[in-house]
């Protein structure tokens, strides 16, 4: 018995050593990636991901404002106040709006489609092409946004955008959120909740709100990951880009239109 104990099987030991090493090598990246994603980002974003949205217009309810309200709360847009002396009509046309609810009607059949329209996060964004200062830019992970430090407020990008996605801030802003700096003289638009992205949150405010409302019309995810829910959904159902004739390869896709 003792003799057997002393007689160590070295091959067996080596096998276990290699097996443990291989297991660690396979599992560790997953564990490390997971823990990094929950903390504020410390490494520069890369083009290994491309963030996007898929909006199922058949699930988008008429009159529902859940995503718009959630966007306003997330980004401090609900803190905007009408400047004294400005008419209600002018304020409605000038205040910052990152998502617009659009209703389409087919005049021949009478079919009505509702959809939220925000920055489409194009692969080839016209707003970036026309920006004279480089303030309008596309981040490596596909988010199109404005660097307000270099924005001079010329509004060329607003002219160039086919989706009317951008807003200009006309008046001094007093109430900002720490996570969303915004101020007078700059252009702004949907940035796919960029502070959420950098802090490792799973989704956007609009997608979460739509889910909470029970519609589940908005799916957020990584377009480059073939296993992500958004890629799976894009694979299984027909979807379109709005103004796909412009060949901008938008990051926001719509189905049912």
């Amino acid at each position, binding site marked *: 018995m003792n003799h057997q104990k002393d007689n160590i099987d070295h091959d067996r030991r080596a096998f276990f050593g290699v097996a443990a090493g291989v297991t660690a090598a396979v599992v560790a990246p997953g564990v490390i990636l997971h823990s990094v994603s929950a*903390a504020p980002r410390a490494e*520069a974003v890369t083009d290994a991901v491309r963030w996007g949205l898929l909006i199922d217009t058949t699930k988008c309810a008429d009159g529902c404002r859940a995503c718009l309200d959630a966007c306003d709360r997330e980004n401090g847009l609900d*803190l905007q106040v009408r400047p004294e002396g400005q008419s209600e009509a002018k304020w409605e046309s000038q205040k910052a709006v990152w998502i617009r609810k659009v209703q389409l009607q087919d005049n021949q059949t009478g079919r009505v489609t509702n959809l939220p329209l925000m920055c489409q996060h194009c692969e080839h964004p016209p707003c970036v092409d026309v920006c004279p200062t480089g303030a309008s830019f596309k*981040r490596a992970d596909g988010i199109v946004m404005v660097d307000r*430090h270099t924005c001079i407020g010329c509004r060329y990008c607003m002219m160039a955008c086919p989706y009317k996605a951008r807003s200009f801030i006309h008046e001094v*802003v007093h109430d900002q*959120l720490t996570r969303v*700096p915004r101020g007078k003289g700059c252009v702004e638009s949907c940035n796919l909740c960029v502070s959420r992205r950098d802090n490792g949150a799973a989704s956007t405010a609009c997608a979460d709100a739509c889910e909470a409302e029970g519609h589940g019309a908005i799916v957020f995810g990584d377009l480059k990951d073939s296993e992500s829910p958004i890629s799976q959904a894009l694979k299984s159902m027909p979807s379109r880009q709005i103004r796909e004739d412009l060949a901008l390869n938008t990051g926001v896709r719509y189905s049912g239109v």
Partner: protein
Amino acid sequence: MAKAVVRAGLVAVSLAWALGAQVVLAADLGSFVKEGSKAAGLSACVEPTDDMRRNHMEMIKHQRDATVHEGIRGTRHSLAGCIECHVSPGPDGQPVAANAPHQFCNACHSFAAVDVNCFGCHAAVPNGGPVSEAALAAHRAAGVAVTQAGMPAGTKAEGR
């Protein structure tokens, strides 16, 4: 002789006046770090004090590009970090904007006549984002009411 005494007297008076003026200027400047802020309880800023006084703008400027373009957050030179640490409670216990008169940013910047334009866009009080436990503890110790949502009570974006 009398002339020499008068001259010496004048020199002494002007010296005293000049010194007095220095003291008054220093008093106008106020203390740099405000009482009740998290910073008041720490021995040093994220870099040595001399370095901070001279180069804080360069650090913030470098950081802003890394944050906006590369998405790097939560590093030691973030403006949100400056605000969180240096904002101090007012008489009503609410945090006072860091750029308000006699507050941390404004104390030096008004003396040096250098405009701070960070706060045209950035929040001057910790607001709407995750506030660290350390900051919350410092605020509580300083008597600042903190809501359950982790926000100083009474900020306009309360409960968010």
